[in-house]
């Protein structure tokens, strides 16, 4: 008899396993992870030095819940006909339902083979143990991971250069006004930022740019995004298009196979998206577990993510669109939130930045406004005197 098999023991897979039990499932639950460690949280890896391994849960929790956690074991192939997952070591696991939660891997461009990347505990250990006062660290990519690492490395006294091909930082995920605030802060902290920088080649101890400049480096880290790990699904004949394609309840075209977390592309408000976000991975893991047990509801949770750099906290709810204007709400002490409304005046996205958790409440409320499709007048949103929470009460 098969049971529930989850391949990928990251944030998403682990939450799925726990949720199966919380929902009362009593059959076997097997969680297959290729990493040798107990499942851990990735976000701290770029934010702390020395790297702190923060487990998602203690080992006893898996035992108490009768979850078979297979570590250091790779899922190699899905035999759909016989509903069986074949592991790299030759063992096989029969399943009634299979969840693919294989996450993403750091992207590399050709010619960047020598650069390090930051995705796992092993990566973080290797990078951070090589950084100390005066180390010349060059980071390729001005996205979250690169910038968080830049802040952490400055704390260790490294000389940090960030090379970004676009003309601003974090272009994919935050409005320009917020990116500018981070840009200023990194410069103040002594990070050398080179925008519009095209990397031509990596040498043993230098990065060469297209304009001919050479930047000396003891260590080079590429933070140029992540790509979904989709091989298992693709080899099994399941659709892959920037992630394993799933429907609203996170099911693939094979009704016994689901995919969730960083590896999947799911419909959000009618358009396919793939998110690399910690909370989304948790939420989708939980949702997939319920779907595996027969729940037919669509996943509707609003995307939400955060980043910490120095003492600045960034939070974003919803998906910001390039073609909609931003409405600015001052939160005090330099903190602010940028809202977007759709054509009907409903809140679409909110991005906020401030010291510590200054924008947390507003973003939490924004998330609920977005979820409920509440219509708000721009001047009400922008008036610092408005109690946003009141808007939720209708």
């Amino acid at each position: 008899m098969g049971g529930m098999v989850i391949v990928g023991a990251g944030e998403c897979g682990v939450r799925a396993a726990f949720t199966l039990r919380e929902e009362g499932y009593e059959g076997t639950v097997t969680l297959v992870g290729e990493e040798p460690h107990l499942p851990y949280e990735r976000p701290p890896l770029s934010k702390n030095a020395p790297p702190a391994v923060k487990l998602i849960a203690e080992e006893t929790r898996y035992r108490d819940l009768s979850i078979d956690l297979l570590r250091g074991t790779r899922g190699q192939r899905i035999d759909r006909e016989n509903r069986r997952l074949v592991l790299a070591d030759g063992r096989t696991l029969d399943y009634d339902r299979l969840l693919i939660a294989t996450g993403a891997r750091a992207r590399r461009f050709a010619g960047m083979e020598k650069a390090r990347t930051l995705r796992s505990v092993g990566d973080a250990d290797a990078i951070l143990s090589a950084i100390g006062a005066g180390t010349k660290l060059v980071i390729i990519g001005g996205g979250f991971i690169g910038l968080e690492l830049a802040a952490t490395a400055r704390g260790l006294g490294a000389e940090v250069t960030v090379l970004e091909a676009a003309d601003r930082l974090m272009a994919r995920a935050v409005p320009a006004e917020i990116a500018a605030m981070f840009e200023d802060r990194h410069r103040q902290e002594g990070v050398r930022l080179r925008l519009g920088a095209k990397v031509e080649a990596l040498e043993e101890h230098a990065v060469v740019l297209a304009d001919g400049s050479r930047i000396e480096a003891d260590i080079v880290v590429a933070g140029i995004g992540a790509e979904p790990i989709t091989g298992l699904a693709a080899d099994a004949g399941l659709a892959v298009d920037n992630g394993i394609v799933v429907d609203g309840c996170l099911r693939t075209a094979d009704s016994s196979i689901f995919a969730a977390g960083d590896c999947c592309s799911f419909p959000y408000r009618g358009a396919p998206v793939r998110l690399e976000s910690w909370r989304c991975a948790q939420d989708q893991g939980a949702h997939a577990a319920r779907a595996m047990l027969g729940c037919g509801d669509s996943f509707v949770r609003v995307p939400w993510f955060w980043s910490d750099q120095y003492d600045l906290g960034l939070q974003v709810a919803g998906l910001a669109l390039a073609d909609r204007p931003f409405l600015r709400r001052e939160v005090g002490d330099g903190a602010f939130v940028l809202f977007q409304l759709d054509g009907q005046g409903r809140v679409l996205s909110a991005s906020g930045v401030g010291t510590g958790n200054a924008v947390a409440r507003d973003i939490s409320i924004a998330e609920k406004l977005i979820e409920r499709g509440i219509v708000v007048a721009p001047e009400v949103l922008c008036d610092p005197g408005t109690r946003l929470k009141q808007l939720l009460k209708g």
Partner: protein
Amino acid sequence: MSQWVEACAVDDVEEEDLIRFDHDGRTFAIYRSPDDEFYATDGLCTHEHVHLADGLVMDHIIECPKHNGRFDYRTGEAKGAPVCVNLRTYPVKVEAGRVLIDLS
């Protein structure tokens, strides 16, 4: 033996909101429900020890400001990822417009 400590005035906490209360090197959170009941829990999230006072209170839930971990503030129960450890709660009473909590 109970150990009642004065935490704040009733009016210091708005309806369906919370405040932080520090005492003797410890941090607590004091809540006022929509029906004007008062509750107290530890003040730091069990996930990463962030002050819950910056979080959002709604429908008897305190949502952590850092990663949205949720607790029922009446029972301290962890209500979903990423938190799995409950908050400790403390008995509360109101006397003459003051909120007291029992730290024993």
